[in-house]
């Protein structure tokens, strides 16, 4: 294996259990104490693994075990409290598909904005513009000069997927994003993912669909309760997870 692209070294991240943990000046003044809860839990702890270039890793585990949190740590949008995650190169995060888009700007402006935020120059976007719009579909093309918020949520996700997957980043993080759109669009997404994989990109996929996982991934990582339970060939990890699910 060549140098790892993703190195996760003993990562741990601690969250507050209560939703309402914001400090309130009013409460501090009235009661003289900070009444917010100090009750915390580790969403992830002692997670370590390396991912090599071109590997396709599937992340499985029950709901609420830190899969999305781990993806965010790798994407650099959460900072771990313990250990560190280092990425050799940039990341194309298919996490919040429409995260970089702004409702009041047109679809066209949004493509340039999101592409720019992820480091593409204007010329690079000019080149890819048609591909992006083609991929997103004819409805998106028809509405290019329409404010983005007038798009249906399906169209918004399509455009998001199209922009992010046209980035040059060596690592692609996918958080259940394949579940967007209708069957036809999903097939298109599958096609795009396979293209990216065969171009040597590294893929990190969170999914609850065994079929998707086995289709793309060669290696599986199984998280449960914020701990790493298994790390091995996708088939084995997926079977073990399925067996655990039946028991529960």
């Amino acid at each position, binding site marked *: 294996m060549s140098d790892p692209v993703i190195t996760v070294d003993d990562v741990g991240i601690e969250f507050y259990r209560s939703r309402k*943990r914001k400090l*309130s*000046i009013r409460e501090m003044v009235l009661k003289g104490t900070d009444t917010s809860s100090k009750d915390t839990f580790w969403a992830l702890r002692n997670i370590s693994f390396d991912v090599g270039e071109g590997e396709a890793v599937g992340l499985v585990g029950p709901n609420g075990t830190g899969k999305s949190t781990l993806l965010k740590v790798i994407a650099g949008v959460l900072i771990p*409290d313990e250990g560190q995650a280092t990425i050799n190169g940039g990341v194309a995060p298919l996490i919040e598909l429409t995260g*970089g888009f702004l409702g009041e700007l047109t679809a066209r*402006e949004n493509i340039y904005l999101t592409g720019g*935020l992820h*480091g593409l120059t204007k010329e690079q976007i000019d080149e890819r513009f048609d591909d992006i719009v083609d991929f997103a579909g004819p409805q998106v093309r028809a509405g290019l000069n329409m404010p983005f918020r007038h798009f249906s949520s399906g169209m918004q996700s399509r455009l998001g997927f199209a922009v992010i997957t046209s980035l040059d980043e060596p690592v692609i993080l996918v958080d259940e994003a394949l579940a967007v759109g209708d069957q036809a669009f999903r097939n298109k997404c599958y096609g795009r993912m396979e293209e990216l994989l065969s171009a040597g990109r590294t893929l990190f996929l969170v999914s609850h669909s065994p079929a998707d996982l086995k289709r793309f991934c060669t290696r599986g990582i199984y998280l449960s309760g914020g701990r790493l339970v298994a790390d091995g060939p996708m088939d084995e990890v997926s079977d073990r997870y399925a067996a655990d699910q039946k028991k529960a």
Partner: protein
Amino acid sequence: MTRLQAILDRRAILEILVRRDLRVRYARSILGYLWTIIDPLAMALIYFMIFVVIFKRSDAGHTPYFLFLIVGLLVWQWFSASITETGRALIMEQKLVRSTNLPREMWIIRVVIAKGIEFLLSLPILVVFTAWYVMGGEAHLNWRLLLFPVAVVQQFLMLVGFGLILAPVTVLVDDTTRVVRIIMRMMFYVTPIIYVIERAPDWLQTIFMFNPLAGLLEFYRAGFFEVPINWAAVAVSWVMTFGLIGFGLHLFGRLERAVLKEI
């Protein structure tokens, strides 16, 4: 320092964000630009009416008093708009902050730059009134006008410092916005915008000196009025500017983890 380098490397992205801000503000209507000018003009007119027409105290500031007001109010507009907006900088853009791993100081810097460009765009009013008073023989420009751009740089640094403190605190502590709003209202009156420091009683003058805006305004106004510069206020102001930047960077780094979990 590596953070600074990382931000400099992403100048292009900063430019995209600032352009977007300005487009959202100005693209919709021509009035968008007019508001930038009307607001300080209306304020200047109000204070002119109160102090000069009603109280007959045109000696509250330098002469001509209207020009004195304009400089102060334009500077204040940049200051107050930046403080209000940087406080919300991370919350307003939480979707963007959550989906990109840019150095997060950029979300604050971009607000200060956008508001700073609005300030520069409002300067034509200052030019017009200066020309008017100079031609009327009531005002005389001097070489200290060179201090004006220095003050712009200083104000930028100061505002970034304030923003780096306010933005994470607003995310973590409820009611920060309300408290800031009240403090800003008081700030306006303890800042020598509608009067000069020297008009205040001695004991108050000492307190006013510790307002970083006092020294800043000394530089802004020096080129327009033939009065000595209050160097003590200027020194305090520069020390505080660097203090704010240093403390801001430190605090932002400390709170960044918690903020990211919260938004």
